[in-house]
């Protein structure tokens, strides 16, 4: 670390920390969806990354359509497109649950294989539809540019925006799970499926909606992803391992744990990347997580559920 003055180090820390925050936002959104699906339902959704890609492509399509037909609406389309991304990912998730996942609830390892197959098919559909090359959505002007609190520090606006989205979604998920009657049903089903069914909860319907909501949130993750990177057919699958580690590391069914673990993983990765190569930064981070998981397999936060 020689060669850097103290102010330099501070600026690096802030800027790398901030780029870590963008990564954190996307990881968090991905992990939230997965935490709902995996933590609440115990389903391994290997195609989760592809639902993110669906969201990203939805934004791309929306931007193209707006540019073509309603150029006047360009500054506003993004907000509506986020809802579209959620809705489309939600609908496809609903379909997938209905046709595939619900047959496999009792065989978690098989779900893993089936959803992996699903992810291959979805990737190929993306490739055939949008081409193998990466595309990027035209962003509204107010997302471009950056904010400079001091001359050395340069914080991109799209990063701030992405963070805003993930904070809103996190709050919405917490409210959904802990303040609505639907959330109550979801938690009841998680804790004891048979009992929940006995008191009149339609557990199958709960499962379907829960899965679809998880996928929808992945769609929103895709929407924020488009603001910081371009989208290709395999963009989502690059995140799947990290996302699973975030969820497992945070303790599968804890929202607080998911937030904290997404934060620490993204920050560690982004700050280490500056001092080592990108690959080594990632290796060191993932290794550390695995070692911690070996010492504490239940993750950072555990909910007290009897098995």
């Amino acid at each position: 670390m020689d060669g850097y003055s103290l102010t330099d180090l501070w600026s690096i820390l802030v800027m790398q920390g901030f780029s870590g925050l963008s990564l954190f936002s996307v990881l968090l959104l991905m992990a939230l969806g997965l935490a709902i699906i995996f933590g609440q339902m115990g389903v391994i959704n290997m195609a989760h990354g592809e639902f993110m890609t669906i969201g990203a492509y939805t934004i791309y399509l929306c931007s193209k359509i707006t540019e073509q037909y309603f150029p006047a609406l360009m500054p506003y389309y993004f907000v509506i497109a986020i809802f579209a991304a959620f809705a489309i990912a939600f609908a496809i998730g609903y379909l997938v649950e209905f046709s595939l996942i619900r047959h496999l609830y009792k065989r978690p390892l098989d779900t893993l294989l089936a959803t992996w197959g699903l992810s291959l098919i979805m990737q190929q559909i993306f490739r055939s539809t949008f081409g193998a090359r990466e595309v990027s959505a035209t962003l509204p002007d107010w997302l471009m540019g950056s904010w400079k609190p001091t001359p050395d520090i340069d914080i991109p606006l799209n990063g701030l925006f992405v963070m805003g989205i993930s904070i809103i979604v996190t709050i919405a998920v917490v409210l959904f799970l802990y303040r609505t009657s639907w959330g109550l049903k979801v938690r009841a089903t998680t804790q004891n499926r048979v009992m929940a069914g006995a008191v009149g909860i339609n557990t199958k319907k709960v499962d379907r909606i829960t899965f679809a909501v998880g996928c929808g949130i992945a769609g929103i993750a895709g929407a924020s992803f488009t603001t910081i990177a371009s989208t290709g057919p395999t963009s989502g699958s690059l995140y799947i391992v990290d996302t699973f580690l975030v969820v497992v590391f945070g303790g599968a069914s804890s929202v607080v744990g998911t937030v904290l673990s997404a934060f620490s993983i993204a920050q560690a990765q982004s700050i280490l990347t500056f001092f080592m190569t990108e690959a080594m930064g990632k290796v060191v981070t993932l290794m550390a997580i695995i070692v911690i998981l070996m010492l504490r397999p239940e993750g950072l936060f555990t909910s007290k559920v009897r098995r």
Partner: protein
Amino acid sequence: MMNAFYSKWLGGKRGAIELAVLAAFIFIVMPLWLDIFRLNMVGKYLTYAFAAVGLVMVWGYGGILSLGQGIFFGIGGYCMAMFLKLEASDLASTARQTTPGIPDFMDWNQVTSLPLIWEPFHSLTFTLIAILVLPSVVAYVIGVAMFKRRVGGVYFSIITQAIAAILTILVVGQQGMTGGINGITDLKTLHGWNINTNSAKYILYYLNGALLIGAIVLCKFVLSSKLGRLLLAMRDKEDRVRFSGYDVANFKIFTFSLGAVISAIGGAMFTLQVGFMSPSIIGIVPSIEMVIFAAIGGRMSLVGAVYGTLLVNYGKTAFSESFPSLWLFLMGALFIGVVMVFPNGLAGLYDTYLKGRLEKVMAKLRERGPLRKLSPVKAGVQK
């Protein structure tokens, strides 16, 4: 003695027939049918079958789904590749490099002396031992850390997958040490014996087949022992086995390590037959493809795993040559189909549809057996 061998190692009459058919297929049918180029390719697929056989033990019988089988395949492959590469980079053939005597990719990456880890791979004995010991040590460490703490099921799968990801990033990132994304290429001789000639390819193919059948026989022995029964009991009701006083973790660790060593042998044979080793063969995607090989063959069938591997790889080669975009659809459909429609794979299909009919035919043949001696006379009478 012979009887014990027959029932324990081969698995009785049915097992012996299965093995004989497989051996005939690998040793006689394939070499007669295919030219050396295609045969070499089959040899490559058969090295994946080692990983699939390992997975049948670990996943089918042990109930542990390892998504990191590529790790061990890679360890075996890289050990062998390091030895071959050192032999290919002798002083004479690397004289034009800035630092002669080290592998070419190190020279390209401004590495000026051989890294310490590479030193022992000058020795063939060390390499062969490393191929067997290194994967079992790695598997043992992972196994102890996970199984002793009763981590299993999907957590284990996710963590092994993450380890496979880490290993790939590491190998790709440390270019000067590992050859990076290109891997270790340009391998020529094994202890002075040129591995790229046709005759060498034949010999390696047969060696590979023999090792594969040896591995299957070894697995059959393990399964027919008490351990095999414990494994089955554990998979179905782990707590019950634990309450009976067995240390469940140790059996799992053993099985996981056994699967790892078998995969590593496959990896080493891969390097020998294909002539290179690269990170594209050890990462997340190849590791999960190995699971599909085992699943297609039938997750409980050691012999089936070999056929499953051959079938999927044949399909992959055939389709990706002519319809590359169709292949991923088909592969995806295979994953979904194998869990939804035929969870026991080829072996299951054989058991439900073919076995009964074959037995009927066999029974008929047996009935006819004694009659046939009479038939010439009968035929003569009729004429």
